[in-house]
């Protein structure tokens, strides 16, 4: 290896390392702050020490924020709410859009062109446009302060229909459907046992996209829900800053409770996450 190549290599790894440190420091800050007492929070930016940085002061750590969160603040309920909302929304939205995408990809029927046009057209509708009229409709239908008011509107993502239509077209040959029909397979069984397994990667990706989008959704629950005990983590953790305004450690502990499940899942399913989220192109 010549000197120039060595230098380029050194520069490459140095640049990546600097970037990686900048990326990871906020995670470290979150983790340490969640486990630090109020005194050590104010005295140390990251971990508490006795003098030099390598002399970690283990006494500066505490789990009392988590005790307060679970015993007094009711974070367990908020976590359960988030799990429930995200799971139900993900499953229903995936099912709904897979079914419709299947119809568009594999059937010829009157109105198909209009439906496809509607799906593609609504991809251009920004979510923000629906905030005010969506609230009005939820009010008329009596859906305010209910989970139905959050789950139902999220059940028909046009983007999912588009993705599933593409997936069925590209990975399921028409002959397969015909063969199944010849063998006497019913239409419903055909969809669930033959068609759906053929687009499994898309099912996984879309479940993930919807799950994360629901988990991290703030504005819908903020607008629709009122009852304290129904709030998901996004709104719940934001509201901790009212009663516990200056207890920074507690707020970080709440954030950690909300973020940790997603990060753990990411460590397990890294490749699927990156492929799924960018296939979905869902931002924020």
């Amino acid at each position, binding site marked *: 290896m010549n000197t120039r190549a060595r230098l380029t290599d050194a520069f*490459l790894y140095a*640049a990546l390392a600097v970037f990686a440190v900048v990326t990871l420091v906020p995670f470290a800050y979150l983790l340490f702050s969640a486990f630090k007492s109020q005194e050590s929070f104010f005295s140390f930016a990251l971990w508490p020490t006795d003098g030099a940085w390598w002399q970690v002061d283990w006494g500066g750590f505490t789990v009392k924020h988590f005790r307060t969160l679970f015993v007094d603040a009711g974070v367990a309920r908020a976590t359960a709410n988030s799990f429930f909302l995200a799971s139900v929304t993900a499953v229903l939205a995936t099912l709904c859009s897979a*079914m419709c995408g299947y*119809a568009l990809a594999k059937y010829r029927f009157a109105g198909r062109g209009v439906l496809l046009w509607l799906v593609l057209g609504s991809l251009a509708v920004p979510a923000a*446009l629906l905030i005010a009229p969506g609230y*009005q409709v939820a009010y008329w239908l009596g859906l305010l302060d209910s989970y139905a008011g959050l789950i139902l509107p999220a059940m*028909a993502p046009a983007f999912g229909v588009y993705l599933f239509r593409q997936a069925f077209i590209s990975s399921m040959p028409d002959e397969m459907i015909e063969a199944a029909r010849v063998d006497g397979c019913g239409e419903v069984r055909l969809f669930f046992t033959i068609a759906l397994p053929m687009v499994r990667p898309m099912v996984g990706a879309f479940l993930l996209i919807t799950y994360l989008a629901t988990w991290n959704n703030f504005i819908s629950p903020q607008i629709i829900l009122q009852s304290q005990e129904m709030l998901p983590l996004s709104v719940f953790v934001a509201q901790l800053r009212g009663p516990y305004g200056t207890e920074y450690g507690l707020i970080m502990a709440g954030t950690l409770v909300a973020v940790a499940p997603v990060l753990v899942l990411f460590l397990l399913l890294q490749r699927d996450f990156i492929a799924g989220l960018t296939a979905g192109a869902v931002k924020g």
Partner: protein
Amino acid sequence: MSRRFRQHPAWVPYFWAGPFLLVFAVFLAYPMLLSVKMAFHQNAGPRVAEYVGTQNFSWMMGDPLFWTAVRNTAVFAAASVFIQLPASLGLALLLNRPQLRARGFWRAIFFAPVLVGLPFVAILAGLVFEKNTGLLNVALHEFTSLEVTLPRKIGGQTLGVPFTFDIEFPWLQSYVMPTLIISAFWMYVGFNMVYFLAALQNVDKSQLEAAEIDGANAWHRFVNVTLPAIRPVASFVVLLSLIGSFQLFELPYLLLQETAGPNNQGLTLVMYLYQQGFDRGDLGYASAVGWVLAIVLFGFAIAQQVYGRLRGADL
């Protein structure tokens, strides 16, 4: 072919499309049409609405707050496109180096922040950027605080005067927009990098080699070979980034404790919409703001399509 072709009953496709269509009609198509009507009404909560013609729009055009929101949103969007996306591309180019080891490891690290989610990034940033105890100012203080003795002439004598040099920014008081830009940068730079990394796989390696043999330097190879190959993906990422940036809400709203910040430094278009619709209860006016935003975004989408056609790219 002796195969007997069996047809499905006519209702089957409608059965599959039915649930989607029903929800789509009630929660997307209808609200969208309704918002056109609502944009010409003034509301006091969801119960009371009064027709006001185009007053919502004329009021908006004369409202300095609206223009503050437009300006802030545009600045944020410009930073996303001109600062964050080039950085994403740069990072992707680094990760695309053939000699790089553990590519998956680096990619995972840079991708991780997007998983934290906007509301939690905002809450975390609220502490990181805090003036006295926040991580960023503490770090700046560590690295920049210097006690120097400056020589100064006082009454004919030269005396040493102690002077403390210290960089500390009141981020959430006076530098709200940089705070938002840095936070969003941290969150999305690795996410957008993945798109560019995928696009870089379309670059023809033999063309790069040929250009190198012909004596083209790295910059010329990038501009003439790499950039044209990734242009379709790049213009798509720019559009996504603009759509996301123009709907910025959670980040400033939660970072600034559910306010627009000092002097409305963090007021964005969607926050303006939210304040009008839910703090003031005028859902009609909020719908009008929504339509102005939607029209701007349609404009971007059309511009991107036209640009793609002109370039002959298939998007």
